């Protein structure tokens, strides 16, 4: 596997200062270690992909960055500030500079699309109604759903709900956008829309983006940097092309989605024949 040191050498190269720095983070959930010495950096103005098999704690990483949970040890810096001493008001101030796109959109079901997008504006500012309307309509236009402003969340398809959630996430003009599995369960057209939007948010608005996903092919088309997380630490890092050309068989297996490779098909179990013939075991 590519070592973490060489990984950082590749990603420290050209652009921007560090927006997120995760250093030697350890985190357990219910006694099961999720991260054991995780190190990674996200640079300003770039799209960083966090990849890994299901259950490797990709979503947990986002929960750590947004400080929904605290690491057992290690340091997480966001916008140059260590999160460890942060109190509730500081965490809230930090979150106002970032947006998180949930896997299912997480729209508020008791209000329509327009009100959902207007929600953060109404909560955090005293802008007059015409200005709120303008803000909301421009963001809805950006995700192509201005015509759906009066629909309720229950009337939206999965892809539309995610785009509304994206409009809501960008309505306060965040510097950092976190995407939690944005491609799961989308039809090819919706998937294309979301890909285009992520790229657009990054290029046109200059928003630093972190995309957590296991959809390697989709990510490869938009990511500037990528990290492959496995067994609680960074297994490989670099551009998607570098990962695909990795000399580690496990990394290559993940990147190409092959059934053959060092990652076994079978969950660890006792000897097959012994179990079949044994009467006392299930």
């Amino acid at each position, binding site marked *: 596997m590519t070592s973490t040191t060489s990984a950082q050498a590749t990603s420290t190269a050209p652009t921007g200062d560090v927006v997120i720095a995760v250093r030697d983070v350890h985190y357990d959930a219910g006694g099961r270690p999720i991260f054991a010495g995780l190190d990674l950096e996200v640079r300003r103005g770039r799209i960083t992909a966090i990849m890994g098999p299901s259950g490797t704690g990709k979503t947990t990483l986002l929960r750590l960055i947004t400080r929904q949970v605290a690491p057992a040890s290690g340091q997480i810096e966001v916008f140059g500030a260590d999160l460890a001493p942060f109190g509730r008001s500081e965490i*809230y101030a930090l*979150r106002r500079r*970032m*947006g*998180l796109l949930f896997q299912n959109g*997480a729209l508020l*079901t008791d209000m329509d699309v327009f009100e959902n997008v207007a*929600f953060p504006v109404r*909560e955090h500012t005293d802008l007059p109604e015409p200005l709120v309307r303008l803000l909301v309509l421009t963001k809805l236009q950006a995700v192509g759903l201005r015509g759906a402003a009066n629909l309720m969340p229950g009337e939206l398809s999965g892809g539309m709900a995610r785009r509304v959630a994206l409009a809501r996430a960008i309505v306060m003009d965040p510097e950092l956008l976190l995407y939690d599995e944005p491609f799961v369960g989308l039809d090819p057209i919706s998937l294309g829309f979301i890909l285009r939007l992520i790229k657009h948010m990054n290029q046109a608005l200059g928003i630093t983006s972190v995309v957590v996903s296991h959809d390697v092919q989709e990510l490869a088309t938009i990511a500037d940097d990528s990290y492959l997380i496995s067994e609680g630490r960074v297994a490989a890092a670099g551009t998607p092309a570098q990962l695909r050309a990795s000399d580690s068989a496990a990394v290559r297996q993940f990147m190409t989605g092959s059934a053959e490779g060092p990652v076994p098909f079978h969950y660890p179990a006792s000897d097959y024949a012994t179990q079949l013939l044994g009467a006392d075991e299930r």
Partner: protein
Amino acid sequence: MNGAWQGSYLLGGLRRLGAVTIFLVKLLTQCVPALGRPRLLVLQIYNAGARSLIIIMMAGLFVGMVLGLQGYDLLRRFGSEEALGTAAALGLLRELAPVITALLFAGRAGTALASEIGLMRATDQLTAMEIMAVDPLRYVAAPRFLGGVIALPLLTAVFSVIGLYGAQLVGVQMMGVDRGVFWSQMQSSVGLHDVNEGLVKSLGFGVACSLIAVYEGYHAEPTAEGVGLATTRTVVASSVITLLIDYVLTAAFL
């Protein structure tokens, strides 16, 4: 072995009581800002109160009618049917209206609250608010809690009025108790403290039932089973606590 089991059960109960108390304190600190948002509050009073009106009015009518029937039968044995107005009024105002309204409220509005908040938890809506730097305790929990606390005494008042009408309907219209005696006896022997007893009780029940519903919903496991469990626990806990508080407050008022 048995002792250890009881000990852990007791400890679990105490821990839960502590958690609910801490939640109540947090909730109360968020109630002041919630009061400054009348639109949200009115919506929740409507949800918890106005939407429970039909069931409360129907229950009030039938309970009043039963009271009229039973009261008449009982008082006739002592030859004092004219006391029916007093008996019905005292029974309703002090006891039946607050308790039955609270029990119905727990079943109708409490479960709706718990499952609504639980589903918001299960569909990440509460987390989304947290991420948008909006405290869900302030935006979701506090208005619903306050809505319940305000709605329950109002519903109790409606229950009492309809109940008295029901008692009058049976006692006076059907059984033939004198209309003048029915009302004048009630007027002379029912004091403000009787009304207050019912009011204080319904406020206490309102706090307890709304708190339990909001707490259970807010802490529901984010699964279908978890939300169902939270709803069930809301009804069970609200009913038991209502009857417990009822005894304590009755003893305090006597």
